[in-house]
């Protein structure tokens, strides 16, 4: 691997957002710290989404105290897959996906089999804050497993693919499909090795794909051509994402949307500190788009108008 360098002036010219710029100029300015719990606590996000009538994966229940860990079986749906996640987890840490289970044997997407004791340990770890931000005591949330849409067959390996949409002051800016790989252990996090496929804001079609910040054309496990990826229900996804701004008031927001075979697009979670790799996946910097939005951001537009503006600005070829 040769070391390649680029001058800061080039990055600036291309409008590429850096980590410090994100933290100081966008998160620091537009994300009020008081609002963080709304997105950092997935239970709160869920409750809020319910109020706004935004679809989310079905909640099976949650465990808040170590003494309840024994009762873990109450939350496990008969003959169905499920997901256990820390309500305040970050970066996909502590999310346990169980595809199916039988006679106390729980199968992970990787094929690894866990027993009930291991499941309990995971929940108990979650409660003691192992996966949560700052090691705070946490709650383990049980959700129904999403049956993902057939449109994604072969695009994702052992995991639920989701669409990450960056919402800036209520306007969709960039979108990307996050596809899990064997390296990412079925998780949709790019820094763990998931593939990010940039999705065109106007069409919902893939633009470009990256793994570990480097471009790829085919999925490393399934060898499927990533450029053929097309996200169904695209309008609905943009709507969910844009409304997440109305729901939270956070100006720089990442909305993760999953596509369920039966229920369609659902809000999986929100992120107040979405990463920067989405730029690489989209072959474009974000800053020019932010500037285009800053011109109109003060107008009292509803989400439909905002999406229309984004489509007009960024939806062309």
């Amino acid at each position: 691997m040769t070391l390649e360098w680029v001058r800061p002036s080039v990055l600036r010219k291309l409008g590429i957002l850096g980590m410090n710029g994100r933290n100081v100029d966008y998160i620091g300015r537009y994300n009020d710290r008081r609002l963080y719990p709304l997105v950092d606590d997935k239970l709160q996000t869920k409750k809020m989404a319910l109020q706004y009538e935004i679809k989310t994966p079905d909640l099976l229940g949650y465990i808040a105290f170590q003494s309840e860990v024994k009762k873990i079986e109450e939350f496990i749906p008969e003959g169905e897959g499920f997901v256990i996640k820390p309500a305040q987890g970050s970066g996909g840490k502590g999310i346990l996906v169980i595809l199916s289970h039988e006679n106390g044997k729980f199968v992970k997407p990787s094929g690894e089999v866990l027993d009930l004791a291991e499941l309990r340990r995971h929940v108990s770890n979650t409660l003691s804050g192992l996966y949560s931000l700052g090691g705070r005591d946490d709650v383990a949330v049980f959700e129904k497993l999403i049956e993902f849409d057939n449109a994604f067959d072969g695009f994702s390996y052992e995991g639920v693919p989701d669409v990450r949409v960056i919402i800036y002051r209520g306007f969709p800016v960039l979108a990307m499909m996050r596809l899990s790989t064997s390296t990412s252990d079925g998780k949709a996090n790019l820094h763990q090795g998931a593939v990010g496929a940039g999705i065109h804001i106007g069409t919902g079609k893939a633009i470009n794909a990256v793994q570990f910040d480097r471009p790829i054309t085919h999925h490393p496990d399934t060898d499927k051509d990533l450029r053929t990826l097309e996200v169904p229900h695209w309008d609905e996804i943009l709507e969910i994402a844009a409304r997440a701004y109305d729901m939270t008031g956070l100006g720089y927001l990442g909305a993760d949307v999953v596509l369920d075979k039966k229920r369609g697009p659902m809000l999986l979670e929100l992120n107040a500190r979405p990463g920067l790799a989405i730029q690489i996946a989209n072959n474009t910097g974000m800053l020019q788009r932010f500037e285009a939005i800053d011109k109109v951001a003060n107008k009292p537009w509803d989400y439909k108008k905002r999406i229309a503006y984004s489509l007009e600005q960024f939806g062309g070829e």
Partner: protein
Amino acid sequence: MRSKYQIYLIAAGLVILALSIMFYKIEFLGYSLSPETKRSLYEVEAKVSFEGTGKGAFVSLALPPDQDGFIRVNEDAASSDFGFVIANRHGTRRAEWSRREVTGKQTLYYTEEILPDPNYRAEKQPEPVINPAYEKLELGDLSGKVVEQLIREARTHSYDDVTFAAYLVKKFSNKTDQTISLIFHKYVKNDQDLQRAFAVILAKADIPFNMIEALKLGATKRVNRLIPMFEVYDARKKRWQLFDLHKGQIDRPADLYFWNRGPDAVLITENVKRPRVSFAVTETLVPARTATLKAQKAQESIWNGFSLFSLPIDSQNNFKRLLLVPIGALVVVLLRLFVGLKTSGTFMPVLLAMAFAETQLIPGIVMFLVVVGIGLLFRSYLAHLNLLLVARISAVLILVVGIMVYVAILSYRLGIQESVTITFFPMIILAWTIERMSIIWEEDGPREVLKQGGGSLIVAILAYFAMTAPMVGYLTYNFPETLLIILAIIIVAGRYSGYRLSELYRFASFAKRIDR
């Protein structure tokens, strides 16, 4: 954007404040910016020797007054079996020894340490009036007529007290003058007599003056003699003007230390034989900091109360280390914000660097890798035991202690002495590092462990070099206000929204691809 200017304003304010305090300390309290600077510290010893007469003896020695340009940092009187007091007579401090029935040779000592400091001003100057004690002075049987004649002559040749005295000194240097040669012949055998002659005349002329006996500190000599001089109050300039008995009006040299400033003799004794006083001066060069410390203690400066030097020595040493933490934090901030290194735990590298400072770098790194390595192996086994988090971390903690003990014993046996310092490692932090690393290993793979572990180690090593640099330690300890400068840098760095060095690499191929 307004908050951005506010930040620059605050930062500038902090820097200015810190620099002003530093300037004040350097300029007025004698602090030095570099640890090498030395200052002279003089130890002056007055030795009084005499022989007892078998009766009750009394010895009174004039002591140096508080004066401009010198800080007395210490004084001590050795007086075996003598009663000792410091008394005030005619406005002069005097050391007074007394004892009943003194026989044979006796020696008494008075020593003091003084620190020349051109900025020091005495709290009190002598009153600009003539001390009544001078009026009783006589020079043998020198008649009042001669004195009055001299006064008249000096008055006509002068316009104020200073020029009066100047004329007088000049007149006395002319030995061909009949009156003067007579005075010299009859009354003036040495400089003491000459000083007394001037004193008698000045007292008669009602001119505010003081007799002075001064020590020349400049060259270190075993035995120094006191130089008789006098001073006259200059009403125009509102200050005392020094006179050499032969040269007349002189500026006070920086190394001239007044030992006695008043009407009484340096040594006054009762019932003793062959009283003698001699002076010895030793100059030692001390680090400026030590000198400053001594001066502060003596001076009761307002800064003294807030200075670290006012703490007991062992807590001073703790603070020495504590004051280095912000330096480590600064390194962390710079490396994370400008370079973009990832570390496991924000300030873990700082604690690691502090441990390295105790263990030395290479042994420290080896020990760190050994402890974390073994810890990770053990932790991967613990994972199977299905323990609650707190219990698991505690188990790792105990393991860390165990590893430390065995590493220490084993390497001590192998003859590696440094290993004993392993105790300086922050155990809790190590335990957490192991726990976090093993989670990262599970969640993000060994790649991320290497990235964060390596990042932490690099930051720790750089922080170690920054924190152990002698100049850095000297500055933070002597000028704790440098913390304000560090704070200012960190505040400004906190608003840095430009690219990180790592991003110039991360986005390189991407940027080149789309930059067409």
